């Protein structure tokens, strides 16, 4: 309760709401702005960065500990690590790329678990902030994926072949190509990395905003201003619980989709799609 009240006051007074007048102020963009915890020169280290460091240590530490001394018959952490690795390798890499995608499984495993645990920070108490709702993190991951599949495609299909296969898929009536080629070029080279990053970012942004909105509503109508509208507070509390459960699904789903699309882009680069 104290963490909720403290953060509700933060939401109600700090960024995202206007002035200090009483009344219900829905959380806005300020919910995602954090003052630095400490500063090193011009570089401020904020809470999302701290959470990102913690998540990285957790994920890397778990897999490192799981496969430190691999046994033929796995036990304990290695067992869990093998199940997790096997899930990404079988359901994502092999089903999309095939067996030759095994070289890219480490990348996919890293992306999947980093994104999933970063998303999970949204509902972990005390943290309560999805790291991937700061555009920098999904943008960096999408940039890495982009810088992998484009050079890969160019090196496998040749510079001319890569663009020819992308812009002029075979088997279409010839009058369509002047319209289709620019659309395909822009769609694949520019829109793809953008939507790849923004899909993850927007899902986490919207989810966090919704949970915050319902929690602030519950706090305001039940505690701060208990009056005739208290049923709104009860509704807000129930919706906050429901949205938290829904976010559990969306977090895992978005991590899965990001990784699946990475595998799809890599597979499209390894061999021309048509």
């Amino acid at each position, binding site marked *: 309760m104290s963490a909720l009240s403290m953060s509700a006051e933060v939401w109600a007074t700090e960024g995202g709401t206007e002035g200090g007048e009483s009344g219900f102020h829905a959380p*806005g*963009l300020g919910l995602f702005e954090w003052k630095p915890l400490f500063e090193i020169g011009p570089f401020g280290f904020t809470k999302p960065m701290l959470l990102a460091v913690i998540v990285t240590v957790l994920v890397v530490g778990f897999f490192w500990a799981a496969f430190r001394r691999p046994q033929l018959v796995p036990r304990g952490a290695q067992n869990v690590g093998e199940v997790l690795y096997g899930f990404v390798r079988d359901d994502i890499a092999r089903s999309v790329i095939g067996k030759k995608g095994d070289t890219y499984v480490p990348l996919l495993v890293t992306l999947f678990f980093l994104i999933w645990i970063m998303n999970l920070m949204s509902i972990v108490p005390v943290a309560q902030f999805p790291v991937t709702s700061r555009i920098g993190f999904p943008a960096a991951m999408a940039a890495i994926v982009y810088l992998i599949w484009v050079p890969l495609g160019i090196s496998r299909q040749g510079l001319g072949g890569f663009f020819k296969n992308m812009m002029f898929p075979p088997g279409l009536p010839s009058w369509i190509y002047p319209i289709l080629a620019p659309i395909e070029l822009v769609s694949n080279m520019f829109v793809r990395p953008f*939507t790849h990053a*923004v*899909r993850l970012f*927007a899902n986490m*942004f*919207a989810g966090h905003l919704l949970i915050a909105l319902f929690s602030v509503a519950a706090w305001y109508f039940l505690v701060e201003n208990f009056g005739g509208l208290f049923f709104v507070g009860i509704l807000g509390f129930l919706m906050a619980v429901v949205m938290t459960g829904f976010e559990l699904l969306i977090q895992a*789903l978005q991590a899965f*989709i990001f990784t699946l699309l990475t595998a799809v882009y890599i597979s499209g680069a390894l061999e021309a799609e048509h």
Partner: protein
Amino acid sequence: MLAEVTGSVGSIGYGLSAIGPGVGIGIIFGMGVQAIARQPEAYNLIRQNMLLGFALAEALALIGLVMPFVFGP
């Protein structure tokens, strides 16, 4: 000015941008359920493709949700 829309135009933008994905996601899951009913043993394959299509369609609605924040309140 004959007519002017004031206030939270971003909300109107999001509402408009959610029409298409709403229809699209409904079609995706409707056909997915039909496919599962016709061939229950293909459930995993169908579910994978269903979720992939759902995420691609929902991305458009979510970009519509985020754009008003990008271009400033």
